[in-house]
């Protein structure tokens, strides 16, 4: 009796109980919580009810999480009230909230494409979505047929989506290396699984999952080792403390540190490995190799989600790492980043020219765009940060929209992603072709589209940051990139339609909304970007 109380007392003085600002964690908590509930749904709800329940739950969760983010921003957490929470594990500041907001909106739109079930022809009189009836069943095997007959659907995708989103929300906000690592895994693992769940072309889908998983795990191993080295260097994993060691304010506080602390080799190698882990997620050259295969193999809604949300989250984390932890290293990492940016822009643009599959094409284009964004990242100025934030917002919606359109163009074998099949689409269904053209033009950075505004912002930041050369390379890369975007437009509008060409499925309001949102954002950010630029520039300050 007395001993226990005594013990607890001693425990409390040994390990102080953490005080958590649940209010400011709300977005994350809501999403993760909803995910858990989703799992419970899977366990207890009857099959019939699951689709509706899960979709609603996910939608509700994401929406309310977004509301929470807005609330926090309104409360000034993005600017004046910005700070660290959960004992410095997380930062609630401009970039974090802005990116969380973007991620939530993106996921919300992506959710619409997830829930779409009008595109595929009915199987046994039931609507089906783009996910495998039963992920575990052998493709083309008895099990699969049975599952289809029974009308199974993989409603697990919704909880998985939510988990991934949860991880992504934490990723850009993570303020110590441990949180960073965990968040990375939390959003990576569900994605691996999601990749494997395509309804059609399952072999490719599974292959995509395998590649993504192995390489992802490989890269996260590097990341972890990097973390280890940084920890060894600074004796702590908190960004602030590492930064202060880098800025060499409290060098050699304790004897023990003397051996390792301030050993710059550890710092440099650790930092490099860490950055590499993030560049992998971003899909920058030379860590991009997984992108085309995974983008192609994964179910298109998932691809869209990945392409948009992952980039946002990963770049968020990268920004925080480079601006908060390693500012003292600017002159070390900057040239390296220059290199990566240049190679990414050029390689992405050049290789894309000869692609024959829409999804692969978009994958390479995303690599090129990673390069463009990096150009903004290396600017190392506040305007650099805000330009990247803006670009991410603009880019992610264009990407989502583009992939949503891809889900519409189908033939007997499911989505017709081979470019030759897109010939003459403009004749057959002008509207869809036109919409896709808008997205392509945005990718190409034609004025009056969000793509141009973003590109201009980033290049401007780079130029001001004294990276004129990057701007020039970027311009050249955009010129090359323009070539293949144009190629697709030519194909759609100026070449004769194939006789047995694909048909354009009439989507349900879900996908329609998703695409409409995409177009709207593309044009609004292109014509009147001022408001969002303000938002981004207000959000351009990291809490330390």
């Amino acid at each position, binding site marked *: 009796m007395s001993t226990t109380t005594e013990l607890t007392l001693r425990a409390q003085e040994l390990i102080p109980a953490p005080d958590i600002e649940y209010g400011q964690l709300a977005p994350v908590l809501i999403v993760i919580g909803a995910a858990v509930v989703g799992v419970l749904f899977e366990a207890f709800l009857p099959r019939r009810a699951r689709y509706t329940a899960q979709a609603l739950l996910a939608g509700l969760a994401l929406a309310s999480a977004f509301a929470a983010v807005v609330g926090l921003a309104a409360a000034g957490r993005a600017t004046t009230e910005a700070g660290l929470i959960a004992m410095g594990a997380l930062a609630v500041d401009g970039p974090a909230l802005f990116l969380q907001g973007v991620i939530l909106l993106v996921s919300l739109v992506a959710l619409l494409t997830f829930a779409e079930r009008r595109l595929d022809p009915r199987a046994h009189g039931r609507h089906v979505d783009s996910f495998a009836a039963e992920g575990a069943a052998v493709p083309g095997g008895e099990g699969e047929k049975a599952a289809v007959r029974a009308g199974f659907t993989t409603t697990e995708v919704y909880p998985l989506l939510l988990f991934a989103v949860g991880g992504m929300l934490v990723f850009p906000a993570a303020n110590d290396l441990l949180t960073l690592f965990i968040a990375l895994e939390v959003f990576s693992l569900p994605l691996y699984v999601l990749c494997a769940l395509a309804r059609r072309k399952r072999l490719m889908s599974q292959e995509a999952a395998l590649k993504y998983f192995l390489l992802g795990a490989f890269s996260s191993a590097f990341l972890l080792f990097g973390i280890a080295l940084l920890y060894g260097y600074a004796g702590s994993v908190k960004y602030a403390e590492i930064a202060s060691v880098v800025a060499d304010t409290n060098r050699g506080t304790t004897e023990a540190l003397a051996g390792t602390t301030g050993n710059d080799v550890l710092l440099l190698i650790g930092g490099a490995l860490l950055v590499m882990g993030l560049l992998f997620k971003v899909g920058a050259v030379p860590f991009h190799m997984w992108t085309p295969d995974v983008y192609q193999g994964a179910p298109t809604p998932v691809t869209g989600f990945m392409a948009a949300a992952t980039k946002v989250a990963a770049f968020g984390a990268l920004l925080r790492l480079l601006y908060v932890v390693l500012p003292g290293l600017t002159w070390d990492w900057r040239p390296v980043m220059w290199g990566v940016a240049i190679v990414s822009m050029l390689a992405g643009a050049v290789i894309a020219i*000869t692609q024959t599959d829409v999804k692969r094409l978009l994958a390479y284009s995303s690599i090129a765009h990673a390069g463009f964004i990096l150009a903004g990242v290396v600017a190392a100025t506040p305007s650099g940060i805000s330009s990247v934030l803006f670009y991410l917002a603009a880019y992610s919606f264009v990407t989502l929209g583009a992939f949503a359109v891809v889900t519409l163009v189908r033939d007997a074998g499911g989505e017709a992603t081979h470019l030759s099949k897109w010939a003459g689409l403009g004749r057959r269904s002008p509207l869809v072709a036109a919409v896709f053209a808008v997205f392509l033009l945005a990718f190409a950075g034609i004025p009056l589209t969000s793509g141009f505004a973003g590109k201009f912002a980033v290049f401007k930041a780079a130029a001001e940051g004294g990276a004129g050369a990057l701007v020039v390379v970027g311009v050249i890369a955009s010129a090359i990139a323009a070539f293949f975007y144009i190629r697709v437009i030519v194909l759609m509008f100026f070449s004769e339609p194939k006789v047995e060409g694909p048909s354009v499925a009439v989507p349900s309001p879900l996908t329609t909304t998703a695409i409409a949102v995409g177009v709207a954002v593309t044009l609004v950010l292109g014509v009147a970007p001022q408001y969002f630029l303000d938002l981004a520039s207000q959000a351009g300050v990291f809490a330390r």
Partner: protein
Amino acid sequence: METLIGLLVAAPLLGAAVLLCGGRRLDRTGHWIGTALAAASFLLGAVLFADMLGREAEDRTLSQHVFSWIPVGGFQADVAFRLDQLSMTFVLLITGVGTLIHVYSIGYMEHDERRRRFFGYLNLFLAAMLLLVLADNYLLLYAGWEGVGLASYLLIGFWQHKPSAATAAKKAFIVNRVGDIGLSIAIMIMFTTFGTFAFSPVLESVGGTSEGTATAIGLMLLLAACGKSAQVPLQSWLGDAMEGPTPVSALIHAATMVTAGVYLIVRSGAIFDAAPAAQTAVVTVGAVTLLFGAIVGCAKDDIKKALAGSTMSQIGYMVLAAGLGPIGYAFAIMHLVTHGFFKAGLFLGAGSVMHGMNDEVDMRRYGGLRKYMPITFATFGLGYLAIIGFPGLSGFFSKDKIIEAAFAKGGTEGWILGGAALLGAAITAFYMTRVMLMTFFGEERWRNAPTPSPKEPSVEPAAETGGEYEVPHPHESPKSMTVPMIVLAFGSVFAGGLFSWGEAFVHWLEPVVPFEHGHPPVSALTVTAATVVALLIGVGAAWLQYGRKPVPALAPRGSLLTRAARRDLLQDDFNHVVLVKPGEYLTRGLVYLDHKVVDGAVNGTAAAVGGLSGRSRRIQNGYARSYAVSMLGGAAVLVAATLLMRAV
């Protein structure tokens, strides 16, 4: 009064506009409208002339500022007219002969369904020509200059369905364009030097500039004159221009347009006076051309081409005179006017002959026509006498004066020029006699069918009548054609005498065209005598050749010179070899270059990028482990780079 000047130009211009835009509904009345307006502007001219005579010699110059044409900065081009004795002379010549030829054409073009358009073009020409001579600045003159070029283009190519006509028209325009370069560059130099290009300021302040500048302007003007007046080396177009209807040849390519060059030189006299070198160039061109044209004239069997050669040579005389300075200007103009009369007459005569010989132009297919078409014979004959300078007729006075002036130039130069002029006179007499004899005398060679000859292009009209030959029935032409011929004949007889009556013409021009008496090394009488002798020799030679013995219906091969002369002394062959062919190769080469090199560079770049792409995408070989390799490599590079950065 001034306001009438504008009307001079406006009347025919209106005619052209009405006739060309009027459409088919004017087909019946068109030619009357055209003729009426031509006559109207002649009457206007007459009125102005009377008015001018009514005033003192000094203030006879009228000028009218119509509106400001191109005002940009210091560049102030106006549409303004200047009517002085010189331009007045031209006005009367142009409108007078013009009107006559309108009348003539009514008959001549009777059976052409596009007669209305023909008259439209004629009016257009009159307007442009009047603009040319009335302009008070070089730019406006340039406008008229190109305008007459256009009219001549349209009229030479009037029978567009004939490829030869179309080609001739194009050739005429382009050769003229070459000349026009000269005029436009001259204007540019004037503007750069004087800040203006209006006659009086420029001509008054020529003295203020260097001789070099003056020479440059002079040579450029000469180039222009060569183009328009078919002087060597730009004369090649005139012969082909005979593809046009005969009235056109008479009006444009004999009486008026081709003399524009002379007008230009005389008008710019001050400039040439300030640039001796340029003057030498002018006289040289003149002398060469008068011989050149004469020689060509001797060899042609096509009656119009023969006359064309003669025109060239006569204009040569004028240019020569104009190049002599104050001692020659007036006579140049005088010869210009008389030539206007008799050459127009001759052409109309030729036209009437062709009219009666169903458009046969080969003189070797004529012969003994005098009894079939007496009036034509008479008028043509008078014109003939005039042009060869038969004493008493107008040609005699004007040409003789020029020869005198040539001698008066003084020094060896004078002798050379004078000699050339004399020689020219002899040859003129020769070829004109030849024409006369072959056409109106000798046996009637047209009775038997032509023996088709390969190297005679000029039998085309006969060929049009589908191979087999019907004997023509030579007959006199209708009144509408003969009357103008008669009028012109009067001109060719009396004009010269009238003008040189107490040097009336010279003094009339003097206020605007400076004049001084030339003093030939030998007495004027001797020169005159020499001229007469020369012409007698020419006539005699011609008679020996074509009068005594019958003319072969098929041209003999002839001497080398003859053959060369038939081919316009190889002018075209020269141009072909030196300009046309190389030009063709150049354009072809450039087309190839543009496609292969300039464009190729672009496409090449694209292809290169494509190839690079094709090669680099192979890296993406589908094997996860190789991806891992690249990641590891990347990591290594990243680490190495960071370390390196710190090291340096």
